[in-house]
């Protein structure tokens, strides 16, 4: 699998990382190298195998769907780069 510049640009947009035009070509090369190496997995027969979706054999616990936490807006926003009062701020999204 070889990625072109346009694909790298598209992935970068999906990942919300601005990639300078000059970096696209070298990145395409690096990512293609990694994907080419990963390609060997296709030779493994997995037709009768269930995917392993986590790291544990422990059954995940259930709990009642109730709020058991909250009321700490000050602590939650304390590390925000531009908190105002109990609110996070973002650039204006509605005109």
């Amino acid at each position, binding site marked *: 699998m070889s990625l072109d510049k346009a694909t790298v640009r598209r992935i970068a947009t999906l990942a919300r990382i601005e990639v300078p035009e000059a970096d696209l070509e070298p990145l395409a090369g690096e*990512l293609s190298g*990694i994907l080419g190496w990963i390609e060997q*997995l296709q030779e493994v027969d997995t037709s009768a195998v269930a995917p392993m979706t986590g*790291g544990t*054999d422990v059954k995940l616990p259930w709990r009642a769907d109730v709020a058991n936490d909250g009321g700490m807006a000050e602590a939650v926003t304390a590390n925000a780069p531009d908190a105002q009062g109990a609110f996070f701020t973002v650039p204006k999204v509605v005109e």
Partner: protein
Amino acid sequence: MTLTSLTIAEARDQLRAKKISAVELTEAHLAEMTKQKALNAFVTETPDIARARAKEADAALAKGDAPALTGIPLGIKDLFCTEGVLTTASSHILDGFKPRYESTVTAKLKAAGSVMLGKLNLDEFAMGSSTTTSYYGPTINPWKAKGSGADLVPGGSSGGSAAAVAGGLAMGATGTDTGGSIRQPAAFAGIVGVKPTYGRCSRWGVVAFASSLDQPGPMTRTVRDSAIMLQAMCGHDPKDSTSSKLAVPDFEKALSRGVKGLKIGIPKEYRPDGLNAEVAALWDQGIAWLKDAGATPVDVSLPHTKYALPTYYIVAPAEASSNLARYDGVRFGLRVAGQSLDEMYSKTRAAGFGPEVRRRILIGTYVLSAGYYDAYYLKAQKVRALIARDFEQAFTQCDALLTPTAPTPAFAIGAKFDDPVAMYLNDVFTVPASLAGIPGSSVPAGLTSTGLPLGLQVLTKRWDEETMFAVSQTLEDAAAFKRLV
């Protein structure tokens, strides 16, 4: 014997016997940190916290009410959230982040009486095998090759932890292991590193890299110290849904079990053509030591071993791309202004992430994107199941596996940068166990002809850290490895 060369077990006994005080033990380590600042092991030093906790420890010791780690100075990998103390994951994007909460593991270590010396350097977001991708610069391995002054990497990602413990800056340190990030640096720095079973230690409050693989563990100078430290770190935590409710065994007690009657599996796939001759020779020596101690080596096969690394490099980046989506310039850390919300996100993340993290987020985004999910991510999850099954089958024939920890000794800072895949190969022997979720240790077992440490890896089945500790202790006893301190 200086205060900074004591083991945790020795210091514990001397503190309890009032032969030394926690304050003097802590001061000795703070002085050593200043003396060896050039190693760049710490991102943040916390001498005020250390001194305050040391005083509390002495008070507790005076009262005779001292839990296991009372007064023991430890370093904390800067991936663990520590309340009110800068937590960076060695990334620019977490600039200024001071968590308002304490990770479960560090809270347990605190409750056990330990003294936090500071936060230790790592590869950015734990992505790397050399501690060179840190925003705060590389950490230097205290070991040097014979007749050479060249700076070597301490391995990674827990390289700050490895350097601090090997160099006598801390008696022990926390690490985290996603694909080898405790075991490989332990091998490179000539110390012991233990990755317990996935689910043994809570991940709550540990900056997430790949959630189905991440697991905290101890890094120390002896096997006994790792047993003592792990005992304090693990146990059920309702805040981590993958945290096990199983009772935690007495790890220190397991050390004296020995290996008599145990079957030790030697996986043939870990001896590829061209394996470093000194690494292969040490492995053979390790087999002989265990045999001398009464164990029986048996040949086993883990047929899907060669697919572990490519599987890992789908699963880990996929999970990372999702976990790292939270760094958006809104809730914590760095923000770079933009005209629109998307532009602010994109500029913040471009400025905040280093090249290796960016590379992995992009790979992860790609393998999860529409049209590729089945071909990459689902395929990798299925191969992961086969890798786990390989181990299950091997453990029907043996009690533990013995392998080298890493394919090479520590390399020079700046090496292996051109090809990301070449760097990934460092973890070829550690990644399979991570994917399977089984416990593993690295024990320093010998030196290369150039005088650099090499480690042997012990793997056991899920939840059987006791056998892992028993085998590790036997190796340590036989190897009589000469530590730096």
